[in-house]
């Protein structure tokens, strides 16, 4: 259904005459911001997203704590990828996307003119659903981001490449063949290469949109191990359809749901993964997790 959506002068999303966030009883996220010197925490307040006039997400309030894994779960089409793309402004690339509410990274707004998307994306990396290495060597793939940032010195690049490949648990397999074309790697290796590529810019956060859905079980296992390693240094937000995976690797889980095509998706519940999977507050969460729908 087409919901009349407008973007008001200050950038907030309004429809039916009022700001969107005011029309929905939002789920409160009680997580306390533990930011000391920890970098990479997001706060979302009343976040709504519309593609053209089609409002797909409404009133999401959420805290994403630093150096932990937050999983986004929910049925297909409930806006997980859309919400994820808000966090590094990749929705900007699609055009005709309106975002309302506020999103802050380490207390700083990332919305509109308050943040340069190019700078934001150096701080918030992304790993895509299908491995998408660039058509160049393994080395050049990893060095791509640092080179964009202006790193030119060979020694420094070498160090970053090694460190990033180690971070993505790929170093041992490729250290002798860094000049090899990235397409010669297996799918799972390519995906770890993409993780290394994202790590090389030293991001505070890495967003992963179903990073293992195109991979075999062993490669999936390796990606999960990598995530477990990484979370001590970066914040990870992962979208997954695999409930076991969410339960295994995440610290917090957010469940989104679009109850019908006529209305936008909401955040149903967010909390510690253990609680979400054993004793959720909302029965819709429980039905979804136990596989009764979605």
């Amino acid at each position: 259904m087409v919901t009349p959506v407008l973007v008001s002068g200050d950038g907030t999303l309004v429809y039916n005459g009022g700001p969107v966030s005011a029309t929905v009883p939002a789920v409160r996220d009680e997580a306390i911001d533990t930011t000391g010197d920890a970098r990479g925490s997001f706060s979302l307040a009343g976040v709504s997203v519309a593609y053209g006039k089609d409002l797909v997400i409404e009133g999401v309030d959420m805290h994403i704590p630093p150096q932990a894994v937050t999983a986004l779960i929910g049925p297909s089409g409930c806006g997980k990828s859309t919400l994820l793309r808000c966090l590094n402004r990749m929705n900007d690339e699609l055009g005709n996307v309106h975002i309302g509410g506020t999103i802050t990274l380490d207390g700083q707004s990332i919305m509109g003119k308050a943040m340069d998307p190019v700078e934001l994306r150096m701080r918030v990396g992304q790993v895509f659903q299908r491995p998408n290495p660039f058509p160049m060597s393994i080395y050049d793939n990893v060095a791509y981001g640092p080179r964009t940032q202006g790193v030119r010195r060979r020694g420094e690049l070498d160090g970053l490449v090694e460190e990033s490949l180690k971070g993505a648990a790929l170093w041992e397999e490729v250290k002798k063949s860094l000049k090899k074309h990235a397409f010669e790697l297996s799918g799972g290796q390519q995906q770890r290469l993409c993780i290394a590529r994202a790590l090389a810019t030293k991001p505070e956060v890495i967003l992963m949109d179903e990073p293992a859905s195109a991979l075999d079980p062993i490669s999936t296992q390796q990606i999960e191990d990598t995530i477990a390693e990484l979370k001590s240094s970066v914040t990870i937000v992962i979208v997954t359809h695999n409930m076991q995976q969410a339960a295994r690797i995440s610290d917090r889980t957010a469940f989104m749901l679009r109850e019908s095509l006529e209305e936008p998706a909401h955040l149903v519940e967010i909390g510690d993964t253990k609680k979400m999977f054993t004793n959720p507050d909302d029965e819709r969460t429980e039905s979804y997790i136990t596989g009764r729908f979605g």
Partner: protein
Amino acid sequence: MTTPSTPSSGRRLGRTTTRRAAEAVVRAIIYLCGWMAIIILGAIAVFLMWNSLRAVQEAGLVTMLTGTAWYPTSSPGKFGMLPLILGSLFVTGVALAVCVPVGVAAAVFISEFSGRLVKEVMKSIIEFMAAVPSVVYGLIGVAVLIPFVRQFFGLDTGMTALTGGIVLGIMSIPTVISISEDALHAVPAELRQGSAALGNTRWQTTFKVTIPAASSGIFAAVMLGLGRAIGETMAVLMLTGNAAVMPTSIFESVRTMTGTIAAEMGEVVQGGLHYSVLFAVGLVLFTITFAINLAADLVLERQRKRWRR
């Protein structure tokens, strides 16, 4: 498709047989059509060789290819093709210098930086550009470019390799644009997104990922544009001055291989030596364009293999 038939299904069996026969006929026709291209190409090559035979025997292949004097009507006639080959190369070189930068830049703009509407409009204009007959380009060149080149460079004549090359370049632009644009379009969106997600601007992404990823296709586009330029006849005949002498710069009149064949074929005795030599020129041209197309194909094939991960 064909179910194993039991003895009782005689009628079905009969039908299957007719269907098989029909299939065989259709298959034969399709095969024949497929082979037709090769047969025609082979026939052209044989035909050219057959008719060049006398030239090779009487004037000598090496003498023709390395001779610097083209006086076909003196007696005895001198059939040095080098001035013609160089003439074609000079004109084509200028044409490439025009159509490659303009064509590739336009393709990048259309593919990476323009909205849907602009893209559609540009594509229609380019198709239209390709459909304009070469004689019309020649006319415009005669009216506008010849006087301009003469005055701007202070030459005795505006009919030069440069003049012909510029017009030829403009004529080849549509080929370069549309094939380069296809190549850029074929680069997966995931690659652009991957680059953007690493903090690259549209421009950086275009130059660091998209163009390199499409480079073989762009190369093929250039090769095909080159093939178009080297084979073009009418416009060069009208614009290059047609002096069959060894050129030393692009500011001189030249005569191309195509122009020579078109201009002289009407005046030769059929089956004579001059006639046969013109076929030999045609054979050289055929060989060059064939080699260019083959090279372009090989490069494209390599790219295709690469994308098939």
